[in-house]
């Protein structure tokens, strides 16, 4: 009788797998249902954004930045503007800073709502997807009312913001905040204690804090492992030091904690938006910046806390109209690197849950 034996099997997950959030290809070596090796293949979304920026003036780079990380495009715009302002030592008006914080935090909430919906959908619960996107719609409407676009805003400019908020913005924004606060109870009721959700998430994809730090992981993924590190507190940019908010952390570092942490962050961001709306001063919204903006020669690194970790840009200027060199740093890249470490020796279905909980967005990885 022939001897029965098993073989390892190599299979492609992606590039168009629906749970890879874009086009990421994972080459999996499987032994039965178990994943024993993961090799991520990136670059399918490479658009040479850094090079494109080097061929454009500083003002023209901002629409390009929208495409760098389109789920939280505001923080990319802010990042680039902030770097250029640091280079040229431009003072930003008070009102503009407040408006920027409102937009940044609203965008963080929108991003986490997408995470909530999409992660649940990847794991097999379709209802939260519809709920998450419905509340996100309220925020997107606020953006559209203010700057005219729903995804690629081009709102934050070097020296301020492009337009002041319309008069109906504030009541609508407060209403949206109230709605999201109410609906967060629904969100938690749907998933937090759901037995299927717990089995699929608890204890899956545990990321130890030291491994996360070794790989340069930042943002919610690192905070879910117990590291209290948030650039908004540790290296305050804009006017974040004026607001009263907490940095939530969790201990276990598994998929479930990463999910809970993002819900906590939504609550904190809602608080920040409310405080900013209360304290919103009158005044200019943009500093005087020449259309032929030419910062002095030099180099600068700016960083912000994005919904996916530390987002950084390094700009080298030779004093010309266009940046000499632009280098971006996105949090997703480091989180994708850590996936083979925490994703091996689990089932394929768990890999989907881990990938979703890391909240990777591929344009940020591929640039």
């Amino acid at each position, binding site marked *: 009788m022939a001897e029965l034996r098993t073989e390892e099997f190599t299979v492609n997950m992606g590039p168009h797998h629906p749970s890879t959030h874009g086009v990421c290809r994972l080459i999996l070596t499987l032994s039965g249902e178990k994943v024993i090796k993961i090799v991520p293949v990136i670059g399918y979304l490479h658009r040479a954004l850094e090079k494109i920026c080097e061929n454009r003036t500083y003002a023209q780079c901002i629409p*390009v930045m929208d495409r760098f990380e389109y789920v939280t495009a505001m923080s990319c715009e802010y990042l680039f503007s902030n770097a250029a302002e640091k280079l040229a030592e431009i003072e930003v008006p008070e009102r503009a800073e407040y408006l920027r914080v409102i937009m940044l935090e609203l965008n963080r909430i929108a991003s986490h709502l997408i995470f909530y919906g999409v992660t649940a959908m990847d794991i097999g619960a379709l209802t939260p997807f519809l709920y998450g996107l419905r509340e996100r719609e309220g925020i997107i409407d606020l953006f559209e009312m203010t700057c005219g676009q729903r995804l690629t805003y081009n709102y934050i400019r070097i020296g301020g913001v492009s337009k002041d908020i319309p008069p109906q913005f504030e009541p609508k924004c407060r209403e949206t905040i109230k709605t999201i606060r109410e609906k967060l109870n629904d969100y938690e*009721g749907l998933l937090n*204690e759901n037995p299927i959700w717990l089995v699929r998430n608890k204890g899956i994809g545990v990321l130890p804090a030291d491994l996360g730090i070794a790989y340069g992981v930042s943002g919610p993924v690192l905070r879910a492992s117990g590291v209290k590190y948030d650039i908004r507190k540790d290296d305050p940019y804009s006017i974040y030091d004026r607001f009263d908010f907490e940095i939530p952390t969790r201990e276990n570092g598994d998929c479930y904690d990463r999910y809970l942490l993002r819900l906590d962050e939504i609550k904190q961001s809602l608080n920040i938006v409310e405080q900013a709306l209360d304290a919103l001063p009158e005044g200019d919204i943009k500093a005087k910046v020449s259309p032929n903006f030419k910062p002095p020669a030099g180099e600068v690194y700016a960083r912000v806390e994005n919904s996916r970790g530390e987002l950084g840009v390094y700009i080298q200027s030779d004093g010309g109209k266009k940046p000499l060199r632009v280098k971006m740093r996105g949090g997703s890249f480091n989180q994708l690197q850590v996936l083979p470490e925490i994703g091996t020796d689990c089932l394929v279905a768990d890999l989907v849950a881990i990938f979703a909980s890391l909240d990777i967005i591929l344009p940020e990885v591929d640039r």
Partner: protein
Amino acid sequence: MKLLKDIKNLLIGMRITGKHLGRHAITIQYPEERWEMPERSRGIVVLLSDKETGDLNCTGCLLCMKACPSAAIFIDAPRDPETKKRKLLTFTVDNALCCFCGLCEEACNFSAIKMATMYEFSEPEKEGFLWDMKKLQEVGLDVDYIDTRKKKPAKKVPKPATDSGTATDKIVPDTLDSDAKQTPPAPEPDKPKEDGE
């Protein structure tokens, strides 16, 4: 005991879903129903015309073309060798290239270009996305806008430079025309600040 707890938690989820049973849909049936676009919504690029005369507001200053990050605007407006004024010949926008950032609208000093709220412009052929001056004007005719132009630009002709050596060189940085060297022209009143490159 765990089973009972699980069933209870499942029922909580079902209750939340059940709350939405009797409620109306929040989506709209798109081609029949339409979403009202906000005033600032950035859709297709149009050219605006003067409300009284019906002529285009555009002076052919090329500022929007220079501001465009994706090079979607093509303008041909050569300077008249005698009057030194630009004459607008063609103004083409390639909507396939446009990234809808709105920088052209901000760059314009003459209320000549605007991103209208219109968003339906799909075409079966790629060539159909190239909109020429006539079509851009046609679409922009019923677009409402605030005219921010100065009323009578002719009054604001700057004084002719008294010390005609260095001053005129500064005002006219790029004298491409050969005959401009002999008689440096006074800058046109509606000529915006262009970069000196």
